[in-house]
């Protein structure tokens, strides 16, 4: 099977890879580039565990082909922290115990980052609807939503809500 050559930017670094036509960006990230932080929960766009930001837009990497990454700028969960310094969203998830098994967490971190980039001051309802594409089976979302609201407040420079 012949492969395509793709040049893209992932987490700030120019990256090249070869992929088969039918391979999704998620397959490429996980299997070719060893970026296994993006998870496969469904491969059908229904769980959000594979969330990445592509040219500023939150997408399910399982619904995007590897070849579509050509020329794009992709951020995965591995690119959210600044070196050893966690992003406020990551820190708030930890402090709020907003993860149990942690399998959905990469997707939620990426989706929350995209939310706060687009809307730094979401209401709880806006946060719940934005994150409705991310399934978590462990937490009942309570602590996730609290972490998101507190991360938003922190990033706006406000005192923590709780």
């Amino acid at each position, binding site marked *: *099977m012949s492969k395509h050559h793709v040049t893209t930017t992932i987490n700030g670094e120019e990256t090249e890879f070869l992929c*088969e036509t*039918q391979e999704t960006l998620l*397959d490429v990230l*996980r299997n070719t580039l*060893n*970026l*296994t*932080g*993006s*998870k*496969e*929960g*469904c*491969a*059908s766009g*229904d*769980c959000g*565990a594979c969330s990445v930001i592509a040219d500023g837009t939150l997408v399910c990497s399982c619904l995007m082909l590897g070849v579509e990454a050509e020329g794009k700028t992709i951020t*995965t*969960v*591995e690119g*959210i*922290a600044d070196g050893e310094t*966690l992003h406020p969203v*990551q*820190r708030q*998830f*930890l402090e*709020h*115990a907003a*993860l*149990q*098994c*942690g*399998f*959905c*967490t*990469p997707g939620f*971190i990426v989706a929350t980052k995209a939310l706060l980039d687009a809307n730094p001051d979401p209401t709880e309802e806006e*946060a*719940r*609807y934005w*994150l*409705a*594409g*991310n*399934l*978590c*089976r*462990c*937490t*009942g*979302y*309570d*602590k*996730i*939503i*609290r972490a998101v609201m507190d991360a938003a407040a922190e990033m706006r420079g406000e005192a923590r809500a*709780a």
Partner: protein
Amino acid sequence: MDDQVNVAEARKGFKWVGTSPVRPDGVPKVTGRAMYGADMKMPGTLVGKILRSPHAHARIVSIDTSRAAALPGVRAVITAADFPEQNFEYIGPERVAVNFWHVTRNIMAREKALYEGHAVAAVAAISDSVAAAACALIDVQYEVLPHVIDVDAAMAPDAPLLFADMITRGVEPAPTRPSNVSKRLEFKIGDLDTGFAAADVVIEHEFKTATVHQAYIEPHACSARIEADGQGEIWASSQGHFAVRALTAKLMGMPVGDLRVYPAEIGGGFGGKTVVYLEPVAAMLSKKSGFPVRLAMSREEVFRATGPTSGASMWVKIGVTKDGKLVAADGVFKFQAGAFPGSPVMNACLCAFAPYDIANARAVGYDVVCNRPKAAAYRAPGSPISAFAVESVLDMLAKKIGMDPLELRLKNAARIGTPTIFGPKHAHNGYPETVQALLDHPGYRAPLGKNQGRGAASGYWFNGGGESSATMQVNADGTVLVATGSPDIGGSRASMAIMAAETLGVDYKQVRAIVADTGSVGYTHVTGGSRVTFATGTAVVDATKTIIKDLCRRAAMIWDVDPEAVVWEDGHARPAGANAGAFPPLSLKDIAAKAAQTGGSITAAASVNAGGQAPGFSTQFCDVEVDPETGKVTILRFVAAQDVGRAIHPAYVEGQIQGGVVQGIGWALNEEYIYNARGLLDNPGFLDYRCPVASDLPMIEAVLVEVPNPAHPYGAKGVGEVNICPPMAAIANAIENAIGRRLTELPMSPPKVLAAIDGPDAGAGA
């Protein structure tokens, strides 16, 4: 966090128990570095793929793998013929008995495919695409047979039989004709006739629940490597790597000692990852090919081929006096086992009336096979199903006699000494306290708006104890390592570190908790049955106490005094009193620095078979609003009180409660397996199998009731499961309160609610 205020009381006297520090394994989980089942790639790994039955029920006439095996890039093709046959016998306690004749047929079909998605062959190849092409080249000849999906239909005398020789167990004399009923159970106390004769009001009703899946977000995945000498390693995401080792070794016919299993991080299990599906297949593919093999399920495979929990058909009848005394209860619980015997119907029978003091009661259960995937454990397996029926009838009775439903429960609450239908008397309190907590909750009396209703319900779960092991090491710099054999699904490393730090009197951050592989720590039973904080926690505290003794002995050597002259206090060895001498206290670091001179490495191991676990009790109420146009039910408020013994890490305890409640909300309102006329699953994906999402829900208020368990060093009780028992009935009761119609069939999805609004009241007795 403001919602931790309710545990402040318990925190008194403890430094770490009752606090909620960040988990030791947290950072890799928010940065994407944590390694789950599918994230491991050994050098030279092949891709495994399983070919599955497209039929609900079919005889396998022949399997020809020759064309697949000849495809370039294919390294191995296997079928059931590669696995040794197993004896037909039920092993282990009846509640969880295993029959390996069934297990080996579930991982790879032999004579027949018994459900759509049943594995029939597997390949290992150099890539996904080659593996898929190879599966397509395997020629399986099927003779399609009539199938049966529904439990009542499977019990009908003319039902298609899954096993031509299945004679119902538990019936005297044994039936002469085979059927799909694997087992009948009966548990009884008192005299039903006398009991019902004393009742002023008796209500009986039938109920149905749908098959629902645990729906962990991580699909099953593993890697296996079996060497030419027969020894091997497995890296797997599971609720118990010791169980994976035992089951895989048995199914492969290899000695347990030849297999080492490493615990990957696990992306949720809820009971569904206590059994094996992939590990023996990956191991056999590796053995046959000589290469490591990675096997991961798609979401569709998870739905079609792994254990959901049983759907059920039930009948419950309860009698009460007009002043609210429950005098008799009777129930029949018919459970789908799926393709092989072993539904959780026994639990359903035992838990059904357990929260209550009812002198005359009976529960009859049927374990029934049908052409669905074999049921696996799901959070308090069985109990939520019978609770839906029992707690609905209690609500009808309360309404009929004009009593508050929580007051009815409080009046009849089981306490220490209350008899049960399963023999031993209740040995713990905790139930009435959960009811009282809700009666005292301001929300319980808050006014409701139009189309809104409030409902309450309770639940019971045994909780587990059993075998657990822990080892502890004090490192050269005074840091401490705690290794256990319990996979961490919900923050248990944090609780283990908390208990170790508390016992040792050192900083939480000084202790690192890890999950060790089967070669590095003693046997530990699965993370399930709400047993880890209780049983593994006890092992951790035992190991810590041994370490403390050893540290005192070493301090005595350093000071040249008797070991009895040394005490351990606040993380330091100190002279026991003025007579013991005037030595400055020694810290862990001080003693660790002299380890070589005092006997070498400072380590201890502890193994327990923990008994004395206390059961879980939960009582919950919720407010709902029903849209009369669409039948959609919106949850406005949910309050869940649970007796947790003592919360070791309150935030993760709350998380267990919130997560269990939301799974219950999904079970109540949306989730169900939908089959078509050919017995094929129509909704094997998250789009059509609708789990709750963030926008469906309010915050879930967890009320931690703490009635400590004296059998645990810090009073802990299992907290993981009982929270899923009450929601279905609480929501049904709230819907009834809102629309005056009783729904008795799950899920209470919009079409059913709308039909109830438009039709006659199903709950004629209410």
